[in-house]
């Protein structure tokens, strides 16, 4: 439309060398901040996002406390240096909407009714952004919640699919999101087959919309496996080292 960038070439290869249904390389680390009750970090393509959880703890301000369950407060925020053109530090309307949408994606996974009159405070900081940050934010936040020992029904994995250069693709990067025809972010709880976050902007036929959702769910399943591995990684390493050559008790 505006630029003449080739988003997908004739061989079906995208601007960053990926195939249509390929996720960006993902790296996940859990328990990296010492003060937070739970924390995690994700690199997905050029995205760099940190999530931290404090709680359950006393509710501030008091009047928000619910008598029969905990509340989840979520702040999605982008660092001023995270994007091409410096973003002013005050929360933008987009950040307010994403904070809400991310919170609504994670709430169904948490056993909130076990901790009445408390608050679980979740902070998601985007240190570097390259498209799909709300998905990566949900993915890393799930790990931070699990790391904090908060009881959950399931991990929530998220990613986006969309239409770029007339093809349906998985995990859009920033250029693809800006120049493509449609973006469909999805968050998914595998064991309940439950979609917890769903948005779309762009233009798609119903058929394309359905295929995009299927593609995104496929991506979520792959990410879910990575989340599990990341949670266990630290403990498995310690276990292997400690039990080397020692017989079972």
């Amino acid at each position: 439309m505006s630029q003449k960038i080739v988003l997908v070439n004739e061989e079906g290869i995208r601007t960053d060398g990926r195939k249509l249904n390929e996720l960006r390389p993902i790296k996940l680390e859990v328990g990296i901040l010492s003060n937070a009750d739970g924390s995690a970090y994700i690199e997905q393509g050029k995205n760099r996002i940190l999530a931290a959880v404090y709680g359950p703890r006393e509710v501030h301000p008091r009047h928000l406390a619910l008598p029969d369950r905990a509340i989840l407060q979520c702040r999605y925020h982008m660092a001023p240096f995270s994007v091409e053109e410096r973003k002013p530090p005050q929360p933008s309307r987009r950040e307010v909407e994403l904070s809400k949408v991310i919170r609504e994606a994670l709430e169904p996974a948490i056993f909130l009714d076990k901790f009445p009159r408390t608050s679980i405070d979740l902070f998601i900081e985007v240190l570097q952004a390259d498209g799909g940050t709300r998905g990566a934010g949900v993915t890393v936040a799930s790990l931070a919640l699990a790391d904090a020992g908060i009881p959950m029904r399931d991990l929530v994995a998220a990613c986006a699919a969309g239409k770029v250069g007339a093809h349906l693709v998985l995990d859009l990067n920033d250029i693809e999101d800006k120049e493509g025809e449609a973006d469909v972010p999805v968050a998914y709880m595998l064991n309940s087959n439950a979609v917890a976050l769903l948005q779309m902007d762009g233009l798609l036929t119903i058929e394309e919309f359905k295929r995009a959702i299927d593609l995104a769910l496929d991506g979520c399943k792959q990410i879910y496996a990575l989340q599990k591995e990341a949670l266990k990684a630290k403990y498995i390493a310690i276990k292997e080292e400690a039990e080397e050559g020692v017989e079972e008790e």
Partner: protein
Amino acid sequence: MPFFYENRQIVTPGDLLAEGDCLAGHNTYKSDAKIYASRLGLVQYKGRLVQVVALNTFYVPSVGDQVIGKITEVNLHGWSVDINSPYIANLKASEALSRPFKPQRDELSEILDVGDLILAKVTAFDRTRDPSLTIREPDLGKITQGQIVGVSPAKIPRIIGRKGSMISMLKKETRCNITVGQNGLIIITGRNREDERIALLAIQKIEQEAHTSGLTDRVTEMVRKERGDV
């Protein structure tokens, strides 16, 4: 009765642990005759009971628990106590003194002031009220000496050990007095700083490796090595 994991395997929230005629134990939940893990930890199958020994939890008070807390506020009739829990605990003056008292603020802060540590017991807690404490039993009260260390409350059972085996070994080998709070706080009082340091190292090792086997032996070995006994 299909079990989907082996005993002591690490499981994550949402993992399907068992199906059919089973009971959902700690850190699991049941949905449609299926039992799933709700926390990261080691799965344990005990007959029909399926539970998870969590690797990290926060402390939810239970009546009868011994806890270590810190005074955060002096109030009209008692104190607010931080017991490392989502809920702030209350210690009424009547649960701290053996004699009746007059509600004068100065008096209370002379008994226990902000920042003081106490060894207390949980006397009440439910979904509608904050936990209540008492220090009126023998051995309870203000903590005046020792080193304090915090671990995830999930590790406390491992630090105590089966029938107290781990904690007895630690006390014996380090010659320290070790008081364990169910809320993850521990006080170490030794005859010298060096003994206390070794006890601290041992506790940190247990916290790190709580999910492994052969731990008691390895910790004993480490302590002895540190003391130069080996």
